[in-house]
């Protein structure tokens, strides 16, 4: 399971980011969300949702000890691993990074995306 993105449909509302931080951390802070909207708000007005693509071959954890399955289920990551992502998909704030754990199988962000820019792909 992963979250599929259709950038063209994204309205840039930030609701996905808000519910992500709320669900995982009981706070609202869009900087601490596994999904983030990259906005080109002063030029094309295009918005691009970015989040973990759940790669089979995880470049971010290459050479690391421990099971990758465990890491996949974690929301808070360290910035070193996040910086290895070739897609720049994880949000980083100070020394922490935020990784999409798919909310344990019931992604919350999808429920608030009214233009349907994000959806579940099996």
């Amino acid at each position: 399971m992963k979250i599929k993105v259709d950038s063209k449909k994204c309205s840039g509302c930030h609701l996905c980011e808000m519910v992500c931080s709320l669900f995982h951390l009981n706070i609202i802070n869009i900087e601490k969300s596994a999904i983030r909207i990259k906005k080109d708000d002063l030029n094309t007005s295009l918005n691009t949702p970015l989040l973990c693509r759940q790669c089979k071959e995880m470049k971010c954890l290459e050479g690391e000890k421990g099971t990758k399955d465990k890491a996949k289920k974690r929301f808070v990551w360290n910035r070193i691993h996040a910086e290895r992502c070739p897609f720049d998909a994880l949000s980083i704030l100070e020394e922490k990074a935020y990784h999409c754990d798919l909310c344990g199988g019931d992604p919350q962000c999808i429920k608030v995306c009214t233009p349907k820019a994000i959806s579940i792909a099996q």
Partner: protein
Amino acid sequence: MVLDRKVAFINLTDRSAEIKSIPLDLRKKFLGGRGINMYYLSQSYSSKLDPLSPENPLIFGAGLLTGTLGFGSRMSITAKSPESGHLGDANVGGDFGAELVKAGFGHLVITGKSSGPVYLFIKNGKIEIQDAQKLKALDTVETQKKIRQELGDEKVQVMSIGLAGENGVRFASIRTGLKNSAARTGLGAVMGSKNLKAVAVRGTLDITISDPRKYQKYYLKQMKSLMETKWVQALGRYGTPLLFQYANAMGFLSVRNNQWTTVGDHGYALEAEALEPFSTGMLSCFGCPAHCRHRFSMDEGRYQGTSGEGPEYASIGSLGTKLGNLDLQNIIYATELCNRYGLDTISTGSYIAWVMELYQRGIIDQEMTEIPLNWGNGETILELLHRIAQRKGFGNILAEGPLAKKAFGENSKDYLLNIKNFPIEMTDERLPKSFALGMATSTRGACHMRSRPSLDVLGLPEDVLKKIYKGPVSSRFSAYSGKGRMVWWHELLNAVCDSLGFCRFLTVFSSPHAPQYRQFSKWIALSMGLFLTPSGLRTIGERIYTLERMMLVRDGISRKDDTLPKRYFDESIPEGPAQGEVISRDKFNEMLDEYYRLHGWDEEGIPKKKNLKRLGLDE
């Protein structure tokens, strides 16, 4: 925590900033946004306060729920208006309000005047004053880009003025993003008078939530039911231009400075569908599920290569039909020009309509206007926009807004359709009597957003209306009966809505099923553990509206000013679906009597002492 947000008192003369907590008692009385802004403004408001003096406070205020899962994340900017000379207030969407909150602030009260151009940079509780010499004369979009570049952070949100604000054009706006504007009442000129080019904010602070699980569940429930309403579905598809169609079809549109009220079938050229070829998608303000904002691109024609956001219905009317202009591409371009210069599209259109009618009637001629001012000439409109923003020649006279009547003579006065020295907008209110009363009583002068009971358009059964308004209201759009109650009810609700940071369109505006006090009460309780009853919230609405009225009373405003332009009383609509409609002075007065009674104001429209005491406004 929402309730931990601070207020900063910034003085640009001595470059000082004092950061204080917002007392819980003040929150309970005025919530945030417009409400708390009005409280701060009322501390220094007087008839003698010069709007362009350093003493006039320019107040930024995020709504109580701005930056959280609410129905919008808007903010208000408030000061004494250099346009009307009375209360100034403008509400704006976009991402700035939420960023201000993330930076730890609810309100900024800016006074003084800097010796040279500056901008404020606010980040996570800290305030810096930065030099803005390099930003001088830049348009509002370039200013935002340059500040982001200078600060090295693409996530910085900026509210800025353009050339119009710098030049003290009395109807200059304050802008963020490509289109969002705190446009009404000329607050861009107040900002310019302080030598303040922009306010930049950036924040990464947490907002703790009182009951996260129930709050998220409640939000989802509210969002789901909102998205099921026909109104929000249509809004998300077409944006506000869909309202143009109603106004034109029913005959309450301003055409050639309200000499007519419909353009009939010619209106197809400006309807929502006509915008589709230029629309490249829909956008949302921060935290809004409805996405009603168009982004546009013009890939061919005279204005090829222009892209941006908008236009909204208000701009289509104001720069379009009001000026006899039916060229959609010209309207889109003119709107974009206003946004870049930082001009309020509504007031700009109104003043141009005024001088076009003066020109039509021979009250002014080309010796003064420099160019012929013929109705519907798009290129003339663009030329005037440049001259106004640059204060060049005739534009310098127009830049003075209502004060330009000094140059045009006594005969010009009645053709500037205005209320409390603030011009009528893109509509004509002779048909919808509730709209007319709402314009007459609005605390920021002729403005539809203080009350506009759009539900009136729907013609809901009277038993349904009685349930909503708790009293008899006629379901006929053109009737007077009960409309005083309707206006009063919406004024209070909208005051609360603006203080929460919610968007008009997502509360009771065009859908009777949208949230109001009961839902607001729960929202506040679940997010911050503050318990305010639905009726208590309505009292807050009364307090805010009455405080605004009290500031106007200090200016000498009373019943005599709660009126409509002469044209509305004396000239019936000449043709179209609303043909023959005119406002009866007697019936208008009856509506006003009912309205004052419900507000607890005396027959002159002055709030009664016992009511002020009840609302805690008697100190």
